[in-house]
C-alpha cells in the first residue's frame, strides 16, 4: 500500500471524528502556538532592537583606560593613574588620521548654554557643545545640509558650528539658507562667540529628549569644535582622557574596526606597565538582549515540551480508544490480507496526521498572535513620532527555524505516542478481532 493511500485513509478516519480529533489536538495546538508566538516576538524584538541600535550607535565604541591586569571596567583601580597614562588628544588625532574614512572621534563636551536673538527680537536658547567629527554619530544626528565638523576644524580652532533643524526654524525666517551664515552666541560667561554655520543636522529627539513641550522653547545643541569649547571653558591645554567615544563608518565591519583600534592603542601603551586600553561596543548590548531572548526561548521550549507531552498522551489515549472501537475493522482488514506492518502504519500515520494538523494549527495561531502584537506595537509606535523615527515600521519576523522544529516535533510526537496503540492494533488476533462487537 502506498504512502499516499495511507494518508488518504488517515484523513478519512480523522474526518470521521472531527470534534474528537480537534480536542485531541488541543494540547499540541497550545504548545506549538506558544512556541511560535514567543519565538516570533523574540526574533522581531531582536531585529527591532538591532535596527534601533544601528540607527543610533551600533557604530560606537567606548575606548577606556584599564589596568592591564584587571578583568573588567568595574574592577577597582589600585594603581594611581598618572597624567602620562591618560589618552591624549594627539593620540586620537593620530588614530583618526591613520583611518580617516573609518574612525571618527565621538566625544562631546558640554560648554554651557548660550542665547541668540533672532530677527524677530526673540531669544533662542542653545547648548554649546564641544564636538569632534563623530560626535553627531554619538547623538544619532544626521547631516541634512552642508557638512559635519572635521578634525581640521578642531585642530585649527576654526570658529565653525553645525546647528539643528529645530534651531534653523527657531532662528531663521522661512526659506532663508543658514549655510555660511555667521551667528553670534551670547555665552553664560558673557562672551560673544561668532560662529559660521557649516552644516545643519537632524535633531534626534529619541536620544537627546524633547526637553520642552513646544518646539519653540526647545534647546538644541550647537556643535562647535571642541578646542573652541575648551577655550570658552578656559582650558588651553589637552587635559587627557580616561575614556572616549569613537564612532566608525558603518560600511566597515565592526570587528575589523575594533581590531584596528585595539592594536593601535596596544602599540601606544606597549611601554606602559600599568595601563592599557579596552574597548566596549553597543553590540555588547545586543548580545545581552540575545541572552535574555535565549533564556525566554528555553523556558517556552520547556513549557512547550510539557504541553507536547501532555498532548501526546492525549493522542495516545484517543488512539487506544480508536483501536478498540475499530477492532472489528482491524479484523476485517487482516482477513483481507493486511499485514501487521500495514495495520501498524495505518494507525501511526493517523497519529502523525493528528499531531501534524495540531502543529500546523498551532503555528498558524502563533503567527496570528505575532501579527496581532505587531499591529498593536505599530499602533503605539505611530502614536509618538520620536518612537516612529527610531523604530520605523516594526515588521513581524516569524522564526522559520522555530516553525520547522515545531513541525518536526509534532510529527515525532505522533510517531512516539502513536506507536504503542498502532502495535497493539497490529498484534490483534484476526479471529478474535472479527468476533468483537
Amino acid at each position, binding site marked *: 500500500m502506498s504512502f499516499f493511500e495511507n494518508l488518504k485513509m488517515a484523513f*478519512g478516519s480523522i474526518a470521521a471524528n472531527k470534534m474528537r480529533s480537534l480536542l485531541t489536538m488541543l494540547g499540541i495546538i497550545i504548545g506549538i502556538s506558544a512556541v511560535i508566538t514567543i519565538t516570533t516576538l523574540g526574533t522581531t524584538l531582536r531585529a527591532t532592537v538591532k535596527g534601533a541600535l544601528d540607527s543610533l550607535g551600533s557604530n560606537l565604541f567606548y575606548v577606556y583606560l584599564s589596568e592591564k591586569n584587571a578583568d573588567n571596567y568595574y574592577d577597582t583601580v589600585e594603581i594611581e593613574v598618572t597624567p602620562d597614562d591618560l589618552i591624549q588628544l594627539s593620540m586620537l588625532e593620530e588614530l583618526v588620521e591613520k583611518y580617516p574614512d573609518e574612525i571618527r572621534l565621538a566625544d562631546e563636551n558640554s560648554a554651557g548654554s548660550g542665547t541668540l536673538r533672532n530677527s524677530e527680537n526673540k531669544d533662542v536658547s542653545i547648548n554649546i557643545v564641544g564636538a569632534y567629527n563623530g560626535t553627531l554619530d554619538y547623538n544619532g544626528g544626521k547631516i541634512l545640509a552642508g557638512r559635519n565638523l572635521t578634525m581640521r576644524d578642531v585642530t585649527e580652532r576654526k570658529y565653525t558650528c553645525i546647528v539643528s533643524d529645530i534651531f534653523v526654524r527657531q532662528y531663521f525666517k522661512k526659506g532663508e539658507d543658514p549655510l555660511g551664515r555667521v551667528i553670534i552666541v551670547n555665552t553664560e560667561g558673557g562672551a560673544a562667540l561668532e560662529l559660521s554655520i557649516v552644516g545643519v543636522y537632524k535633531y534626534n529627539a529619541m536620544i537627546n529628549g524633547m526637553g520642552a513641550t513646544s518646539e519653540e522653547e526647545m534647546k538644541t545643541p550647537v556643535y562647535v569644535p571642541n578646542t573652541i569649547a575648551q577655550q570658552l571653558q578656559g582650558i588651553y591645554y589637552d587635559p587627557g582622557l580616561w575614556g572616549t567615544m569613537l564612532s566608525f563608518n558603518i560600511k566597515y565591519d565592526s570587528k575589523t574596526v575594533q581590531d584596528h583600534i585595539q592594536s593601535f592603542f596596544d602599540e601606544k601603551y606597549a611601554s606602559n606597565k600599568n595601563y592599557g586600553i579596552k574597548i566596549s561596543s553597543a553590540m555588547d548590548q545586543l548580545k545581552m538582549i540575545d541572552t535574555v531572548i535565549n533564556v525566554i526561548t528555553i523556558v517556552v521550549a520547556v513549557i512547550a515540551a510539557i504541553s507536547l507531552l501532555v498532548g501526546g498522551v492525549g493522542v495516545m489515549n484517543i488512539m487506544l480508544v480508536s483501536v478498540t472501537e475499530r477492532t472489528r475493522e482491524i479484523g476485517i482488514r487482516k*482477513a483481507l490480507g493486511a*499485514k501487521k506492518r500495514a495495520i501498524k502504519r495505518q494507525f501511526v500515520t493517523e497519529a502523525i496526521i493528528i499531531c501534524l494538523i495540531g502543529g500546523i494549527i498551532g503555528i498558524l495561531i502563533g503567527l496570528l498572535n505575532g501579527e496581532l502584537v505587531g499591529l498593536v506595537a505599530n499602533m503605539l509606535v505611530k502614536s509618538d513620532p520620536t518612537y516612529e523615527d527610531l523604530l520605523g515600521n516594526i515588521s513581524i519576523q516569524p522564526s522559520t527555524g522555530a516553525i520547522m522544529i515545531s513541525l518536526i516535533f509534532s510529527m515525532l510526537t505522533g510517531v512516539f505516542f502513536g506507536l504503542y496503540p498502532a502495535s497493539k492494533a497490529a498484534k490483534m488476533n484476526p*479471529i478474535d478481532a472479527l468476533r468483537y462487537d
Partner: protein
Amino acid sequence: MTVSNMAKRIIEMSNIIKRYYIGQPNELQILNGISLTVHEGEFVAIVGASGSGKSTLMNMIGALDKPTEGSYLLNGVDVSKLSDKQLSEIRNKEIGFVFQTFNLISRTNALKNVEMPMLYAGKGRKERSKRAMELLELVEMEDRSTHKPNELSGGQKQRVAIARAMANDPSIILADEPTGALDTKTGRMVMDIFHKLHKQEGKTVILITHSPELASETERIITISDGSIVSDTGYTGNAPDKEVSAE
C-alpha cells in the same frame, strides 16, 4: 505434463486438531483430527449443529488460524509452517472470505470496499478501480458503487462482500453462513451468485450453512459433529482421484 480433465487438490488436511486453553484445566479440544481433501473447482457445503466446529475449521482453511496438530497443505504449501506475514499473503491472494455479518468497512463506499484486498496486494489505483467495477457488475451492484454500506440492504451488502472476496482472484471462496442474516428470497439471490462464481468463474466454493435446501444445491456435503467429520458425500468430479500428476 498434467493429465487433462483432472483437478488438482487444493486443500489437503490430515488429522487436524484444534485445542483452546492448552495446558489449563479447562483445556478444550474443538477439532478432533479432521482429514479432508478438496479439489479445484468443487462446490462444498459444510453442515452441522451449532458449536460443532464449522467456523473453526473454516478459519483454519482460510489461514486465519493455525492447527494445534496435524498438517494442512493449501495449494501444496504447508500452512502450519508459515509466518504471520506469509499467512497474510495467503489470505490476501488465495482466499476470499464472505461472512454472515457482511463485515464491510462502514466509512468507505462499496467500490472502495471491493478495492481493499487489492490495496493490500499493492495494486495500482487504476487497476483497482477497474477490477472493482467489473466485480460489482458481476454481482449486479455497479449502480451502487458509491454508496456506503449503511445505504445498502442486507442482500446488497452481501453482494458487495462477495465482490470483495473475488478481488484478487482467489483460489477458494469461503462463505460462513452467508445467507444467515438474510430472508429466504435475498438468500436465494446470494446463493445464485455463488453458483455463478462456481460455474462461470470456476471457483472452488466452500459454504457453511444451516439450510438443508441450500446445502443440497452443492456438489458435496460434509457434516460435522463435535469436531469430527461424520459424513462426506465425497468428490463428484469425474477426474481420477489418484495419481494427481505425471511428471
